[in-house]
């Protein structure tokens, strides 16, 4: 599975944390109220934060406040969502251009933030 995989939501729902480790892009899996459920190795390497530090925390306010804005966090307040968005992360204190994919769909108990290096 790659970052641009069409209709990626149902596939992601079937993957356990171990399977997420094999992906070549960052995956943040959150509950619908924004608590982190899974944080894969790719994402962990980008941010410098280990999964144990972030799992269970509120992603937009406690882990990555830089996404707590109208461009990212507010989008998840809508119903279903599958959108790519060029963005700048300050990962390890360096501004870095990334591509985000915001995924949320009806009937799933998860929502995702996917991150790929641009």
């Amino acid at each position, binding site marked *: 599975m790659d970052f641009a995989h069409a209709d990626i939501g149902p596939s992601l729902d079937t993957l356990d944390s171990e399977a997420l480790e094999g992906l070549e892009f960052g995956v943040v899996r959150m509950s619908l109220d924004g608590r982190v459920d899974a944080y894969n190795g790719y994402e962990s390497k980008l941010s*410098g934060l280990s999964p144990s530090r972030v799992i269970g925390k509120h992603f937009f306010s406690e882990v990555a406040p830089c996404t*707590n*804005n*109208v461009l990212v966090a507010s989008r998840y307040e809508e119903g279903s969502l599958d959108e790519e968005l060029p963005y*700048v992360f*300050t990962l*390890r*204190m360096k*501004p870095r251009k990334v591509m985000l994919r915001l995924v949320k769909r009806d009937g799933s108990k998860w929502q995702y933030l996917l991150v790929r290096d641009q």
Partner: protein
Amino acid sequence: MSDADEALEVEHESLLAFLYLCPVAIAQLDASGTIEMMNSAGARILQPIAHGGSIENLFDVLGPFGAEVRAIHDRFPHERGSIIEGRRVTFASPRREGPVVLSLTLVKISPVRTMAVIADETERAAQERAAVRAERRVRAAFDQIRDYAVFALDRDGAIETWSKSAERVFQFQAQEVVGRPCSTLYDEEEPTPERLGDLLAGAAKNGWSDDEGWWKRKHEGRLWGSSVVAVIDDECPGDAGFVVVTRDITQKKREEDDLRLTAATDFLTGVHNRRSFEDAATRELEERRQSREPLSLVMIDADHFKKVNDTYGHGTGDDVLKALANTLKAHVRAIDIVARLGGEEFVLLLPRTDEANAFAVAERVRTAVEQLGVSAADGTVVRFTVSTGVVEASHAAASLEDLLHLADEALYEAKRQGRNRSIVATGSATQLAVATAS
């Protein structure tokens, strides 16, 4: 990995998390403004204004303002030091409603390194703008309204702000009144010095209070103002005070007074009529009960008035009554009341006057009338005299009826003794005192 390395790793991660969570943007720039390091708040704050999405050089991201900042940065003559401190700048943001306001601080650390702190002050700036807008609106309203004066007092009643509307109504300029007690604007004839204190105490207790009274006006006499005073409650007690809105209703007051005067005036002589006298006398008696000040009545009757009417006609009779009324008015103070009770009978109500002084007034009136001459239709100069009865309200229980009765008796005694004389009523203060002593 050794324990020490692992500990370092954990510490490093904590530090990263700390910087991710910092709500203020911190960036380290090289000499050209290129961002070498930045925390995530930097991305959050700068992203909406970085139209191209690229955040590489801070000065580029900040657009025209950035160019200005770059110039200031490049011209900075020292190796280190504060370049810009909390400079505010507004950006139009396509993604947000309304502009974004950022504040920027730049500190030069070395010739090749500058630290930048950027805070999003959009919310604060909006609050400040709202406050300024509200103040402008209120001031415009205060300045534009006609007939009303709006001004503010501090908590001790000194004038703190003076609007254009107040200038128009009172004709005083701000510099003439600000800092002075509000009571200095009261008309000098205003009888109660407690007026301001009472007003403010009432407002402090109930949130507001109102009052009507005479105020000074700089150029054109005085004005009758109807005022509402409201408390300005402030969280900081030192800033508490009052707002006063005074409406100039002098014209309305005059009309009302005229109306009242018409209702209270004897149509022939212009002095008070019987009803008006009774109102005033009842009020004075009530007051005397509290103050224990003396109070006297003088009843005056024109002698042989019927003969004047019969001989010279009613027209001359009326002229005699008018001349008598004018003489009475000329011999009393402003606080006294002259009234015509009916026919040729008049009365003087003399507050704060004891029997002896009332008798003196009666005698002055009587001798003045002796000097009067009224021209009749046939050219004859008509001369006449008056008899008077004087009474002092001698004890608290005295009713107006009792006093009029005593004065009437004294007057009758004066007539009986041959007219053109003044007699003090039996049972009046002095005579009671004499009676008690003997």
